[in-house]
């Protein structure tokens, strides 16, 4: 899942980026409002974590412009402004969540996960595709009773496919939602990682879960 952090306070921006990347998210980050708007307009982020007091353009202005342009990314406002008016203004301008600084990193993670589930209409934090089970909270994966160990990148890919289970997902979509902006990878890497994932998930004697739809992409689920 791909996130954008727009936060001007360097220590916070660095620690959030690090923490979220370690939590398996692809994270783009900037400390400037103008640059943040440019990132958000040009990419399809699953969640944008947005500070309000920013150099360049104010966070609320970014929010307004994104919504005016019809951008559907879920936006979490992360700010030290804690008055009722501030919260109401932020939410009324189209933010999906509002978190006041200082905050617990675990809470931020939980809220980001909740927004992601909302993005893909997944209320249950445990996704089940045939005998494949994915716990979105602990990021653990089982096939039948056997737990499968995945690298963060592999998990990110599987999670995205699982969120859009039974739906054909293009390589571009995968690349946009699983890889960061500055990533050196190209969309061909997707095929490589799908290969890695297949090796770990598909098991002899069990039905195939990851299917290739020629010319269109992949889908996770039973036989088409």
């Amino acid at each position, binding site marked *: 899942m791909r996130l954008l952090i727009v936060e001007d*306070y360097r220590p916070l921006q660095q620690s*959030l980026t690090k923490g979220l990347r370690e939590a398996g998210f692809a994270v783009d980050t900037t400390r400037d409002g103008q640059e943040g708007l440019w990132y958000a307009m040009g990419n399809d982020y699953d969640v944008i974590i947005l500070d309000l007091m920013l150099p360049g353009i104010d966070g609320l202005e970014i929010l307004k412009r994104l919504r005016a342009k019809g951008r559907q990314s879920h936006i979490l406002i992360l700010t030290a402004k804690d008055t009722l008016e501030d919260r109401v203004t932020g939410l009324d301008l189209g933010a999906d969540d509002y978190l006041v600084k200082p905050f617990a990193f675990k809470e931020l993670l939980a809220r980001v996960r909740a927004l992601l589930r909302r993005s893909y209409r997944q209320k249950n934090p445990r996704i089940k595709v045939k005998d494949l089970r994915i716990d979105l909270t602990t990021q653990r994966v089982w096939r039948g009773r056997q737990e499968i160990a995945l690298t963060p990148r592999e998990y990110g890919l599987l999670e995205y496919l699982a969120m859009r289970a039974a739906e054909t997902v293009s390589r571009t979509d995968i690349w946009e939602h699983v890889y960061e902006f500055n990533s050196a990878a190209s969309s061909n890497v997707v095929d490589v990682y799908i290969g890695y994932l297949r090796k770990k998930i598909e098991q002899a004697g069990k039905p195939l879960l990851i299917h290739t739809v020629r010319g269109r992409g992949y889908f996770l689920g039973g036989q088409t």
Partner: protein
Amino acid sequence: MTCSLRTRLVIGTVGTIVLLLTVFSLILYVMIRRALVNQFDASLLSTARMLAASVEQDGNEIELEFEVRQLPEFNDPQRQTYYQIWRPDGAVVAKSPLLGADGLLRLEGSLDSPVFGVLRAGNGQPQRTVGFKFIPRLSDSNRVTDSHLTKEQALTLVVARDASDLHRQLYLLQWLLLITSGVTMALSVFVAAIVVRRGLEPLNSIANEIAAIKEDNLAARIKTTSVPAEIMPIKSRLNDLLSRLEDAFKRERRFTADVAHELRTPLAGIRSTIEVTLTRARDQNEYKRVLCDCQAIVENMQTMVSNLLMLARLDAQQISFHSEQIRLAEMVNSCWRSLCDKALVRETGFENRIPVEMICDSDPEHLSMVFMNLLDNAVEYTNNGGQIWATGRQADDSIEITVANTGCTLTSEQASQVFDCFWRGDSSRKDAGVHCGLGLALVQRIVRALGGYTIVDVQNTEIFTIRLALPARGPSTNFY
């Protein structure tokens, strides 16, 4: 306890009405009494004159005309009019048959100026009497004269009439006036209470409106429209006061919110840094780096808290100063030394044009704080490769120092805000959390406390100048 305005007005109004009513009633009573008595006396005198005119002297005989004696008023016990006539020697010539054995008191006035008197009859009834001397007409004459030629023959006539009716009328009048006054007074209390209450209604409605204004709705104003001219200035002043109060509360709230915001951001930084680090095991170098990051944040927070404390002390006038001779150029150089590394990174040049011999009598600790903040601000906001310079000029009894830098992007309107707490030129806010917008606010307050003033100037394109004027002879008091 002081009486309420309403009570005072009611008491004043009713008191005035009572006083006026009493005086008016007394005057009215006296005038009516006099008129009634005069009327009574005139009637009495008329009867007496008629009686005198009916007395005839025939030789030595004195006769009263029979028709007169038979008049009902002299015989009717209900009307009770008495007369008595004396000769000059005191012998009674005639008297009213109603008197019986009693007699009247002899009063000796003249026909032109009769003497009136009051007496009480034997039965205790009040009577009014009139008496005068007169010359009876001779039987062959029908003219009454009072010439000295016949003075020896003058008779004395006294006529008395019962005045019970008159006294009863006056008594009635007294009660009438008393009752009328009493009722009027009672009504006046009632009417005055209503009038005063209605008159004070605008004050009450203003008081109610003020009572309804709480700390959380200071934007409310007194709206009562039907306000008398006398209360209009009070309404305007109260609304002005509310405006000032609202501004003060807004400033305080903004300041508190700003303080909270500025403390929350670094706290969020520390918490997030620590929590992310603790999510998994790290190597020693990483822990060390995280601790150093947290230390840097804490140091910045400490600077901000110290600045806030200093501002609070300056506002509360709790800072003590001690003056000494300061070589300004030397002090500015010394402040610059701690900033030159940062300036070097940004390739910022500095030129100290303050004359070496310039001396100022001021507080060295606080003045150095001023220069430190000014230069730090200049380094922070000068464009890369830009220039900073400080100049000094001695005026009559003050010293003017300017610190200027290139790379200014502020408008005049923005520049007018640079001394506000927590204000930052947003587009220039390159390092959030390190500078929280208190430096120049502190400069302004300290310079003011030192007896000087600060001016900001952005007239010259892209050059930001802060001008300080300090008294050459230092702060006038030891405590500010």
